[in-house]
């Protein structure tokens, strides 16, 4: 039988030296933002019951999850997302806590992606959840934290903002099945104008139909609101638009200019979003790096109804970008190598500690002879070899 003992599974990789340094740098910067804003870290288990993620609103299909069973035969999965476990945790462990709570996480998620697509099956993510309240203040807190997070790791980025209610309110006005609604939602998500038109042409024309038709093209700056208000006047979507406009006007004071985009065609795959939704992009990364929004209904699924909002950032993608840009300096080379003659080992180790204390990168040489020590120093390019005898 063929043994796979020297390779890693597809979609996973080892992180070595500079890669870890870049990851630590990226995560450290983000962690500082989260901590400064008062978010406290939590860790949830790497494996969870399948049931946590099988909610219809989870947006994670079963073929995307790595599954296993426990010793009672119950179905388990390698955590494919962190928001659902946190909702589970808050609904039980923090049920009687003073609300709202601010949580952040830094942990990998696992997805069983199709093979040979080059996608990562293990992804490090960081994110925050602000749970136990709703409204403008909470939304602004989460959004400005997201923007600050992007700013901490990139200069050329975009953040786009939408509202889940816009599409929901408009599609509720149509007499269509959930399946059909989902097809329409997917075509808006993919900005697939021809598929969207085909779907809408089959419905009897009304205001909601023409409003939905224009959703994917409603993205840009302030001017979007004017166009959208004209289309959505007197519908429930109009309230959502007013709210979004209010949030947008507040964010303008950050002076982000073109970096802040409104996209009314932003309908997230995760059905649990109920209010604002947003996505972040960084120049040089071909996929969204940050995504989040308000999910006020999710906690009810765990019998603890309360408002909540949050976002996650794909720190692996940012790390790869930082490595490619070579903006983090990294060296694993010590300045000094200390060799101990037989019997002088402890004296040499003490010297290493002393030199390190003085700020010199110093290593105790573990090779047995002075010749080998000099050869090693030469191969690694270590400038100085000290001998203790």
């Amino acid at each position, binding site marked *: 039988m063929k043994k796979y003992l020297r390779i890693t599974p597809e979609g996973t990789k080892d992180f070595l030296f500079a890669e870890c340094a870049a990851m630590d740098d990226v995560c450290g910067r983000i962690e500082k933002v989260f901590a400064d804003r008062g978010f406290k870290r939590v860790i949830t288990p790497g494996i969870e019951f399948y049931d946590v993620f099988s909610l219809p609103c989870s947006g994670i299909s079963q073929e995307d999850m790595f599954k296993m069973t426990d010793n009672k035969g119950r179905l388990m999965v390698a955590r494919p997302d962190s928001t659902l476990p946190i909702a589970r945790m808050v609904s039980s462990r923090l049920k009687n806590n003073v609300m709202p709570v601010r949580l952040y996480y830094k942990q990998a998620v696992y997805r069983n992606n199709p093979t040979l697509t*080059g996608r990562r099956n293990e992804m490090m993510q960081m994110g925050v959840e602000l749970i136990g309240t709703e409204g403008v203040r909470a939304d602004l807190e989460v959004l400005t934290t997201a923007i600050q997070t992007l700013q901490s790791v990139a200069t050329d980025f*975009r953040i*786009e903002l939408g509202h889940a209610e816009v599409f929901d309110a408009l599609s509720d006005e149509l007499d269509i099945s959930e399946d059909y609604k989902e097809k329409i939602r997917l075509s808006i998500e*993919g*900005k697939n104008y021809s598929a969207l038109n085909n779907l809408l042409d089959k419905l009897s024309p009304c205001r909601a139909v023409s409003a939905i038709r224009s959703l994917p093209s409603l993205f840009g700056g302030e001017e979007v609101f004017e166009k959208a208000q004209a289309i959505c006047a007197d519908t429930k979507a109009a309230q959502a638009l007013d709210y979004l406009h209010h949030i947008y006007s507040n964010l303008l004071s950050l002076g982000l200019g073109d970096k802040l985009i409104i996209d009314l065609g932003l309908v997230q795959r995760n059905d649990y979003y109920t209010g604002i939704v947003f996505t972040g992009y*960084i120049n040089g990364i071909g*996929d969204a790096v940050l995504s989040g929004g308000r999910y006020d209904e999710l906690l009810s699924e765990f019998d603890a109804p309360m408002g909540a909002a949050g976002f996650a950032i794909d720190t692996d993608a940012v790390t790869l970008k930082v490595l490619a840009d070579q903006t983090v300096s990294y060296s694993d080379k010590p300045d000094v190598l200390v060799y101990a003659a037989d019997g002088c080992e402890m004296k040499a180790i003490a010297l290493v500690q002393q030199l390190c204390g003085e700020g010199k990168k110093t290593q105790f040489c573990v090779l047995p002879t002075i010749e080998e020590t000099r050869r090693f120093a030469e191969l690694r390019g270590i400038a100085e070899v000290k001998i203790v005898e």
Partner: protein
Amino acid sequence: MQPLRIALTKGRLEKTTIELLEKIGYNCDEVKNKGRRLILPVGNNDFEVVLAKAADVITYVEHGVCDLGVVGKDTILEHGSSFYELLDLGFGKCRFALATKKDTDFYSGYNTKTIATKYPNVTRAFFDDKNMDVRIIKIEGSVELAPLVGLSDGIVDIVETGSTLKANGLEVIEWVTDISARLIANTASLKLRKREIEELQKKLEAVTK
């Protein structure tokens, strides 16, 4: 900033796309005299064209190494996952069809039907919608052969004129979906380079209508 990069499907779609680009005023001489080069400048370095096989166009766009792509709907249906489909370019038109040997009643009986196809995902989705279990066999070459030699009950394949089917005693019993060339965009590119992409999209839209 690096010019926009567009992946084109080699062959027939490439030719028509180049004609379109010329129509909207871009100089495509470099692409027409490409020799063996695979990355070519267009116009006054307004953008770069990359030539690739259909399925690879999607891969390059999805990973963001190309901002835009021109690819057939058939490939999108078979391989597609996450990107924006911006425009139906209206050329490269044909259809996916379910075909069987002439004068057979495909849907009769309770036995599980066997379908030969080059497009297993399209076939799977088509019969899933009908809640029908079928056995799908992937064929790499001339699919028409499969029902003739008794490998399958029918085929799902691209039909343009239908003459190959006719010559082999097969007939279309159901149309699956229409196909034409599409303009696709990487999701991040559309946000990060919105103005450039929208400008090109509008120009293309004007000449394809």
